[in-house]
């Protein structure tokens, strides 16, 4: 590695850090100049970003293709709905941890069964258990059944008489979402560099070898599944707060598939990818829904047709997501210019396998 090249690489993290701080500052200032609609839309993107990052922990970093991730998102939302008395507020500081623990617990229980399966079985079994929860809320009068359940009053954030924020205000909801989004991001960054994160990478690449090295992989996969469930629960709680209503669709398989799509669209095995994917997905949804009426067919009403076609094309043409397409484009450009050596180019970490561990200089 040449000296110039090394110094360029050393300055890259500092630059990236600066960009991230600027981005967060820009996001934090949004409520002061944007209209309510846009603020809420960005909040939704960040909520979906949390959900997509939590799925990426399974999908991209551990190689566990969960097709039922929305279950835990839904469980946390339902916990809040059920903790909220009619026409009164639940306490934020109690309902939030309970909702997240509820999501984590259900992930732990379901994970106990699903994590012992592999590949295609894992896909089907996660979907089946998520549907079991879906039918539990859909078919029973446990929490409003098919119609769902309303949260009349948003959670009260009062703590010893002091009220740091008011969740009846959309801008406060937005800022809470932003704070939790950043915290989840930081948490995952730290987690992925820890021993645990490295074990997950090892499991993704070669689980059999991890076992012969002495790792009881069941335990680590279960822990990973539980953590991902808890983080999905954070997103579910925030969604319930934002919408003020929870219904079985929260945990339906269309929700699970949508999150999966966000992760793949953005790029698996990265943290920025799922967030980017969430934004792209929601913009697409909005775009397709606002299509005009053409002749006898309302194009916007049948937006799922275009979404379905888009998914089919993405699966066929964009195997490594937006970030992957971007970096392979960048590689091609730099290769054509004959620029710098590809020291970290990694032939095996292509298409959907994500990035392995932190590179050590």
């Amino acid at each position, binding site marked *: 590695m040449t000296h110039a090249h090394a110094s360029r690489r050393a300055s890259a993290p500092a630059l990236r850090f600066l960009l991230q701080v600027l981005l967060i500052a820009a996001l934090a200032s949004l409520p002061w100049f944007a209209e309510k609609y846009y603020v809420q839309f960005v909040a939704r993107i960040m909520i979906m970003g949390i959900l997509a990052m939590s799925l990426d922990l399974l*999908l991209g970093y551990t190689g566990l*293709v969960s*097709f039922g991730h929305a279950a835990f998102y839904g469980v946390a939302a339902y916990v809040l709905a059920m903790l909220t008395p009619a026409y009164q507020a639940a306490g934020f500081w109690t309902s939030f941890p309970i909702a997240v623990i509820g999501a984590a617990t259900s992930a732990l229980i379901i994970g106990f*069964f*699903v994590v*012992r*399966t*592999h*590949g*295609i*079985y894992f*896909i*089907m*079994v996660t*979907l*089946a*258990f998520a*549907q*079991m929860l879906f*039918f*539990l809320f859909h*078919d*029973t*009068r*446990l929490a409003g059944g098919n119609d769902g359940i309303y949260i009349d009053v948003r959670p009260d954030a009062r703590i010893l008489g002091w009220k740091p924020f008011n969740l009846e205000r959309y801008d406060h909801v937005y800022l809470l979402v932003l704070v939790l989004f950043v915290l989840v991001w930081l948490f995952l960054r730290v987690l992925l560099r820890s021993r645990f994160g490295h074990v997950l990478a090892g499991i993704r690449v070669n689980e*059999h070898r991890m076992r012969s090295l002495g790792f009881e992989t069941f335990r680590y996969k279960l822990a990973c599944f539980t953590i991902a469930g808890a983080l999905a629960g954070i997103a579910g709680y925030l969604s319930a707060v934002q919408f003020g209503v929870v219904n079985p669709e929260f945990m339906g*398989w269309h929700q699970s*598939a949508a999150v*999966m*799509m966000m992760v*793949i669209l953005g790029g698996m095995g990265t943290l920025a990818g799922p967030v980017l994917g969430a934004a792209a997905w929601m913009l697409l949804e909005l775009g397709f829904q606002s299509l005009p009426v053409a002749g006898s*067919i309302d194009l916007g009403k*049948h937006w*799922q*047709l275009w*979404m*379905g*076609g*888009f*998914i*089919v094309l*993405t*699966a*066929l043409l964009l*195997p490594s997501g937006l970030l992957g397409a971007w970096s392979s484009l960048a590689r091609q450009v730099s290769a054509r210019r004959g620029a710098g050596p590809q020291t970290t180019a990694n032939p095996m970490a292509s*298409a*959907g396998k994500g990035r392995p561990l932190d590179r050590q200089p």
Partner: protein
Amino acid sequence: MELATFLIQLLNSVQYGLLLFLISSGLTLVFGIMGIINVAHGSFYMIGAYLAWSLTQTLGNFWAALALAVPIAVIIGLVLEWLVVRFLYTRDLLYQVLLTYGLILMFEELRSILWGDDVRGVNIPAALDASIRLTDTLSYPVYRLAISGVCLVVAGLMYWLIQKTRVGMTIRAGSVNREMVQSLGIDVKLIYRLVFALGVTLAALAGMIAAPVSSVFPGMGNQILIVCFVVVVIGGMGSVKGALVASLLIGLVDTFGKVLHVQIGGVHLLPELASMSVYLLMAAILLWRPEGLFGKHTG
């Protein structure tokens, strides 16, 4: 439980189980032979049911509708394989799931555009619109017996096709060793196309013959798909025998789960929870045999 009631429930569960087998055998065959997970499989069940409904409307006769709908299903299968599925053979499971999920969305919307979003009904064909009296108050519809009969005939045909014919031998060899079959000069691509079309047709046929007893409604395919997944997980992916055993098992558990719950009588604690019984069965099997009853153990 009275004997007659028990008999009726038993017949119901066998009929449901055999119908499930018809659908899930296609799912498991396509996976076992082609290595493809097709989550859009349930859509073909829905398409079959809607075809039966709309063609019965136009032609005025259920049998004529059936005679036309089956070839349509075969063509849908062949075209779909050629159009998209063949690009999936070398792809990761994840992309197979995604692409076929995209197909579900498209099928649902096309169904909505073509046939609307209302719940439809198909009349039981006159020739089979009768009941067999079991006691003074209880009887069993002939049509349900006919469903079981059709499923059994199809199951027999499939057994014959896979075990006894040259095509079947090629199919079995192809699922074991693709390169070897290819080197023998057999067109694997053609076999894959036919197997996929077979799977589509089986699911669509199930939808057609089920249409007169279950209503025809949006989302019916997704409901059945999940149950088929449970069947395949319990039976073992790729095993037709496993699909048969697991389908019948689920038919029994589902039907009697509901009945027995009602029997508890006084305590009507969430009777709908009975629909959970199949998932509990799946959970128990997963603890015991994670690769299913007849699945091959994969490291």
